[in-house]
């Protein structure tokens, strides 16, 4: 007799709550909605996010500019050519070897930002180079994210020996500064490229740079991911899923990954910024993109060599790089503040 009222109450409970919620029209917002609302209020972050999209769009449109405005290609030399500026004829590269500076629209868009020492159109190279830098940055960031999620979740969820091995490898990789590990791999792979079974990647290929950059940042993301998975696996909802008979793969996709999503998103944004920076550093040292393939890194490298006579050669690609990285950093910061303010994300080393 004593248990009867209690059972009734439990059965009535949820129905009663639902009724109450319906009466007061309380609509709870999910974490993503709340995050989006917070991000929308952060006008600075949105502005810089827009800037990044514009930069990507501009670089994606590189062939259009080269074809329709500058009428040249990124690798075409105009060493002995002349252009007409305000009715008078000028050498693209002066007799003293100094290339012309920015012409803006005075030569109908030709040499908009001047020429380099081989008489190549800097604006065209800047856009094509940006395309390469961004492709490297985004693909490498994607690779890092994927590897980190796999390694981090396996290590954190299964613990035991797989955790010990993964952690040891990540710790050792972490002992090398990013730039040193990158250059070491770059040097080792530059001559001869990479041969894995039937696949042969040439040493000049952008794929090598992508693989290197994608690999060296893995410890910086996989370690925090592992830490989060470690705490998630002890949560009640994981226990509940286990009690319902869900296997590890299913728990991974339905319980663990959705809870990692905001961290992953923040990391991904900041990883692109760091990957673009690392590409520039590796190319500057000669262990990244190989000239004459344009990238912002190789262009800065060529520009720094000529900084005394033609400083615009270094300033222009560097400024584009800073603008891109800054826009990603500000936007990534905004996303983090909106979704996961407590996340401690750090990549530089």
């Amino acid at each position, binding site marked *: 007799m004593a248990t009867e009222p209690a059972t009734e109450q439990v059965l009535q409970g949820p129905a009663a709550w639902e009724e109450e919620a319906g009466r007061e029209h309380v609509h709870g917002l999910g974490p993503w909605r709340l995050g989006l609302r917070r991000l929308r209020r952060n006008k600075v972050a949105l502005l810089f996010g827009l800037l990044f999209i514009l930069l990507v769009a501009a670089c994606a449109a590189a062939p259009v500019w080269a074809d329709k405005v500058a009428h040249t290609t990124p690798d075409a030399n105009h060493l002995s050519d002349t252009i007409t500026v305000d009715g008078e004829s000028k050498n693209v590269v002066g007799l003293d070897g100094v290339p012309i500076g920015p012409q803006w629209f005075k030569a109908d868009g030709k040499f908009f930002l001047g020429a380099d020492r081989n008489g190549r159109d800097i604006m065209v190279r800047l856009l094509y180079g940006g395309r390469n830098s961004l492709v490297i940055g985004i693909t490498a960031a994607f690779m890092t994210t994927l590897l980190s999620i796999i390694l981090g979740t396996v290590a954190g969820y299964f613990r035991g020996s797989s955790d010990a091995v993964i952690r040891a490898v990540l710790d*050792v990789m972490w*002992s*090398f500064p990013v730039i*040193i590990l990158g250059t070491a*791999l770059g040097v080792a792979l530059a001559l001869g490229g990479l041969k894995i079974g039937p696949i042969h990647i040439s040493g000049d290929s952008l794929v090598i740079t992508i693989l290197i950059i994608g690999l060296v940042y893995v410890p910086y993301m996989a370690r925090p991911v592992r830490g989060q998975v470690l705490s998630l696996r002890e949560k009640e909802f994981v226990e509940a899923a286990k009690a319902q008979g869900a296997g590890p793969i299913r728990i991974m996709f339905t319980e663990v990954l959705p809870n990692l999503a905001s961290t992953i998103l923040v990391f991904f944004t900041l990883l692109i910024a760091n990957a673009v920076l690392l590409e520039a550093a590796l190319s500057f040292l000669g262990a990244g993109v190989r000239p004459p393939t344009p990238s912002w890194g190789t262009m800065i490298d060529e520009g*720094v060599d000529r900084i005394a006579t033609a*400083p615009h050669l270094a300033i222009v690609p560097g400024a584009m790089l800073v603008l891109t*990285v800054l826009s990603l950093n500000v936007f990534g910061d905004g996303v983090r503040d909106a979704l996961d303010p407590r996340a401690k994300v750090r990549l*530089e080393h």
Partner: protein
Amino acid sequence: MGRFIVRRLIQMTFVLFAVSIMTFLIFNVIPNGDPAERMAGRQPREAQIEAIRKEWGFDDNIFVQYFTTMKKVFTGDLVSYFTQLPVGEEIVKGLPRTLSLAIGAAILWMFVAICFGLYSAVKAGKFADRFLTIIALIGISMPVFWIGALMNHYLGYKLGWFPNGGYVEFTEDPIDWAYHLILPWTALAILFIGFYSRVLRSNVLDTINEDFVRTARAKGLGERQIMIRHVLRNSMIPIVTLWGLDFGAVVGGGAILTETVFDLQGVGQYAAEAVGQLDVPPVLATTMFAAFFIVLLNAIVDILYAYLDPRIRLQ
């Protein structure tokens, strides 16, 4: 404490061993053709490749190869096939320059970051805070070799305020030494100032709400004393750890770009030049040197930390 140190040193030995294996794997085992050919550099001669293959024992089994390589690294037997100079001597020669750069930059970035971070936290949400945040973000978005090259060109070459690259020994003339290093220190410090001031700002904002700060205020301490003696001191702990690790990272690798731009001729520039020539032996040695330095500094920081904070020893 003694037990902690022993445990930490044993752990360090294991990591050093693993680091040496990893370096070996990168240069000797990555599957891309003939390692002897790679070792010989850009324009290898047939006889030299054959000599290198014999010298490094690339035909031996992999364990023997590992020992041969390590023996060469640690007995100073390693010779660049590009310059024909012994690698060990070159690293020892460059080390004082690299340390001069790293120590000066580390002091500079810590000092400026404390000023920026504290001011930013005190003015949180106001214009000054937002302004400093943007400045810090610009700082971490700039490649050091780019801003360094621009500083060198405009402040050094064009305006003539600073020497245009180069290095003077400290023992020769300490003032000229510092004068030559001002630009490199600044260029290297910019990134870290941006990063540290942001970390410090958020730490200070966390600490400000602690009970002991309220107690300090309640007992009538002045605002300046609260900020410096109570808030700053407690916010500094995580930063000091980072500082030790980043110092190791700069000596081990961060200096590679700065030294090249300012022509300081330290270990970093030595490595950078070797990278440019695809000269494997110096790159191998500097890679290992970098990782060893970082592992060593990690251990020192941990031990110091355990000395300062007894709770850590028990973990």
